[in-house]
């Protein structure tokens, strides 16, 4: 079990005051039946949203372009081999092939997807949030319960029509690493008993049915291990992100 803290303003009304992730990965399926994909489906991978940052000794977040570029490459490589294992054809959506109009629609879709992801994380995984300045503990939605029922609406058709795919996979990863200076400071802090935060890895993957617009699978990753900076260790993170990914019917048994 790991603990994460964060301050983020999700909207004018919500602030995430404190994030406590209970376990390394948590996945959700739309229904219990969707543990498998149909045999002849195609899945298009949306360009992964990846960000690697370094925590300086002073606690400043310093984005690292080299790490990010490397990690993006490793992630797509690992995804490709995961797809091979799953018996899926690997294809990434190339934004440059979209028309101006399609590009705008794809952006709208991305924004709604982020809003859906935010609601899932806020109401399923966070322990404390602030709404209009009021503190909410475990902001789960009792009506929804454990039901997983989210949609991106009809606008998913832009991706379906462009790519011919049945599903789209969205990926978001953000890694923080402590700088050497911060590691040293951590040691000093630990000796003195004062808390200084280390690095963390958060991300999510979600699978959207492009025929219905529905999210069929969602997987959250939140932990204090994992390293996307190296080709050798990156596949482990991708495997975690894809854990419990629905398998194809033919390979399910």
């Amino acid at each position, binding site marked *: 079990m790991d603990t*994460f*803290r*964060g*301050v*983020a*303003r*999700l909207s004018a009304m919500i602030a*995430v005051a404190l*994030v406590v992730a209970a376990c390394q990965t948590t996945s959700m399926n739309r229904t219990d039946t969707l543990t498998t994909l149909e045999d002849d489906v195609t899945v298009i991978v949306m360009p992964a*949203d990846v*960000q690697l*940052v*370094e*925590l*300086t*000794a*002073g*606690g*400043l*977040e*310093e*984005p*690292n*372009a*080299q790490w*990010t*570029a490397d990690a993006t490459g490793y992630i797509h490589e690992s995804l490709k081999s995961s797809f091979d294992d799953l018996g899926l054809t690997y294809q990434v959506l190339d934004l440059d092939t979209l028309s101006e109009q399609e590009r705008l629609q794809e*952006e709208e879709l991305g*924004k709604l997807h*982020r809003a859906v992801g*935010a609601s899932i*994380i806020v109401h399923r995984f966070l322990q404390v949030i602030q709404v209009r300045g009021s503190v909410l503990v475990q902001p789960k939605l009792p009506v929804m319960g454990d039901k997983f029922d989210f949609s991106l609406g009809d606008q998913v058709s832009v991706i379906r029509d462009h790519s011919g795919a049945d599903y789209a996979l969205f990926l*978001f990863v*953000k890694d*923080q690493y402590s700088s050497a*200076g911060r590691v040293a*400071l951590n040691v*000093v*802090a630990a000796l*003195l*008993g*004062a*808390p*200084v*935060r280390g690095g*963390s890895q*958060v991300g999510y993957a979600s699978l959207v049915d492009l025929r219905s617009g529905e999210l069929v699978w969602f997987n959250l990753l*939140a932990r204090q291990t994992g390293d996307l900076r190296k080709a050798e260790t990156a596949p482990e993170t991708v495997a975690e992100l894809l854990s419990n990914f629905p398998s194809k019917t033919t390979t399910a048994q």
Partner: protein
Amino acid sequence: MTWTDPFRSWRSPTNVPAAFARAAGVLCLTACVATGGGKSETTPIAEGQIVEAGDGSVSPGVVDVTPEGTDSSLYVEPLPLRPIPADIDIGERPSLETDEAGLWMQMDRAERQLATSGKRIRDPELESYITGIVCDLANQYCGDVRVYLVRTPIFNATMAPNGVMQVWSGLLLRAQDEAQLAAVLGHEIAHYLRRHSIKRFRDIRSKLTGLAVFRIAAAVFGVAPVGDVAALGMMGSIQSYSRDHERESDFMGQNLMVESGYDPMAASELWAQLNRERARMEEIDPDKKSPRSVFFASHPPSEEREENLRLRAEAFAQSGVEGRRGREDYIAALGEWREVFLRDELELGEYAQSEALLEILVDSRPEDGALRYFQGELYRARSQDGDADLALAAYAEAAELGYTEAGLYRGWGLTALKNGDNAAGVAALKTYLDLAPEAPDAGMIQFMIGSADATS
């Protein structure tokens, strides 16, 4: 500082993480205008920041600095008028392994969000007009700076290290001509050309290491205030470093104005106008006086900026520089947006400030009926004793000056009804519906006419 934010990418771009924005990401024009500036002590521009480029004097023969009667502690030497060379190549992108590339990456992300934010003003004509001015000022760097117009009724503009410039609507509303706007655009371009963001980021990074150590000591020994005082001191030192950048940008921006043929005095005038707006606001509502902080004034006091830029402009003038203002072009280019910005200004609910601003704008454009209409709208919204009469007078003046927009009759009618003059109110509201039969509030206005008719 020990709190980090794994979900930051969900935030709105205009709300770039506070610590990060303050730290480095985005340099802005007027933190001090919004939060109260301050006559902080000034630091001379560090040697080496303005690199001498051979005989770069724009105006030989001008050397005198401190005119009689000015407070010499208020400003640093703004002369001579040397060109300030750019610190970045045309089309340059930092190489991947550098810390600068990291900053750019972050800002590229923010830019993608800004591009689709609800705050962005997406009007190809206005965007191309302002981009044109920027291109003119930035010259060969035209392709490296991207302008985003942002609908926020606060006087500000920002420059991110990757060349993303934000121009806030509160600035567009206050600038009186193209040259005044160019003064701010030039200032922002200078931040880019001089790589101020990365310099500031590195400065903060090194100082924050010290800060974290203070924090730990404070936590362990239970003397939190000590940590806070240390933080305050550290921030003070960071801010004074950035004030030097602001001066450099003011001067370089003014140089760019001159090179593009703008009147350099416009830069000083804009600051003079802001100082006047603040003074008048404090006169109207003494409670509005904002606390002035030495530590958090990341920008030189606006009095100093006004004065330095004036001295430089006079020196330019002595050397024969003349420049254009583009006054009517500017107002024409803003078009209908100016009234949107005036509405946004009123919606802040900061009536003393809006009153001061409108006074200044009316002073400068007494023939402009739109400004009178918005004075009427201000009084109608404030609705204190006597405001209804002030509003009615302002609406009448607007009409006299030839202002014919439908909204005038809406405001006029609603004020008259409130004042008990049903006949005038109904007449004005009917005019409104005649002029704007498709208005989204037509149903409501119909209802107002009906109830007034019923009671009269």
